[in-house]
């Protein structure tokens, strides 16, 4: 299998592109970041008025804690020790998901196993008997105002993750608003997948070949900045 963008570079590219999306909205936002690539997004956000919410009960999550900063009672939803930003606050899990379910969180960035061309997301379980957990994924995709999927374009063995119809158990139907991979940026418009940006390394033909989902190409297709 041909590697177009090496995994580590791909992850950084995705995180940076998602971060830019928020920076460009030019307004104060509250966002929630899932584990993996989504957590990396925080490191690339430049604006200071973008606040990170952790669903385990915190608004104003700072960078990961290192050394003496580590406090076992101060973690993010991925169980990583984190720091505080000024003006942060704590609350119980019902209030935390109240923010999410009530539509107060401007965006959630999540990873996914599959996303289909209608924006349905599968990211909570591979039915293999070794997994048993849903976490806050279903609440987040149904509650957050904007759902950004940040994931590598294909699986490790080269299978498409952007599919016609999810074959894995669904987290939420038609919930994705934007999908960022290392090869492309898609928006969901009227339940149709629209290609907005394409990576400089590949042609549209290559992208179509690496993508099972059907998509339409935006009239104003741009080259993804990398």
């Amino acid at each position, binding site marked *: 299998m041909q590697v177009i963008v090496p995994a580590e570079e791909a992850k950084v590219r995705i995180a940076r592109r998602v971060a830019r999306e928020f920076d460009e909205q030019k307004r104060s936002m509250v966002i929630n970041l899932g584990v993996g690539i989504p957590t990396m997004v925080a490191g690339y956000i430049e604006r200071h008025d973008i606040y990170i919410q952790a669903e*385990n009960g915190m608004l104003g999550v700072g960078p990961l804690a290192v050394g003496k900063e580590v406090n076992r009672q101060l973690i993010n939803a991925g169980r990583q020790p984190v720091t505080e930003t000024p003006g942060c606050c704590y609350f*119980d899990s019902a209030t935390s998901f109240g923010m999410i379910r009530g539509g107060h969180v401007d965006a959630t960035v999540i990873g996914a196993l599959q996303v289909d061309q209608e924006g349905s997301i599968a990211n909570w379980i591979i039915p293999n008997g070794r997994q048993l957990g849903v976490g806050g994924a279903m609440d987040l995709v149904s509650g957050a105002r904007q759902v950004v999927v940040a994931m590598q374009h294909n699986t490790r063995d080269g299978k498409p993750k952007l599919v016609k119809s999810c074959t894995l158990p669904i987290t939420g139907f038609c919930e994705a608003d934007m999908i960022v991979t290392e090869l492309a940026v898609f928006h969901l418009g009227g339940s149709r997948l629209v290609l907005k940006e394409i990576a400089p390394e590949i042609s549209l033909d290559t992208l179509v070949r690496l993508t099972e989902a059907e998509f339409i190409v935006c009239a104003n297709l741009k080259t993804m900045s990398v």
Partner: protein
Amino acid sequence: MIRPGARIMVGGFGLAGYPELLVENLAACGVGDLTVISNDLGSPGVGLGKLLTNKQIRALIGNYYNWNPEVPEACFRGEIEVTLVPQGTFAEAIRAAGVGIPAFYTAASVGTDLARDKETKEFDGKTFVLERAIHADVALVKAHRADELGNLVYTKTARNFNPLMAMAATLTIAEVDDIVPVGSLDPECIVTPHIFVDILVRRD
């Protein structure tokens, strides 16, 4: 105070804010056939994980067990019964039990495997799933500090499910780092009013 077959709730998220001492005691006394209602089950042999390693658990109600691979293993061997509830629904259902709401509607999980067999209803053209309150016989919660009446305050993300569970059980036992005289806590900053707390246990 915890009998075989009891439904117990235990606060905490990962290893933050769970009642370590109370869980140790529960593991030591060996009471079995428990239904444990908690966010997760710690790690293998650590925290709540001990109760599973000890085979004290009959059923789990919670939302995330991937941090403790012994849970899926025991579940798929048929040794324990596991009910997964989306984390936000889980939190809200525990609060609901505490505040006398028998059931509520949410959009989370609609159409998914976790909503199978659950009633749905439309409001303003959107479909929601009916979720029932989650009660327990005993709640084991962890707070940072209590006053002698049982008013509680917490620390950082160790708060998580604790204030909700304190409301949702017939008997609430709170493990605290510190007990201060009545009147020492700021009345504006008390998170769990003493009405919800039955027993205080101080860590030494």
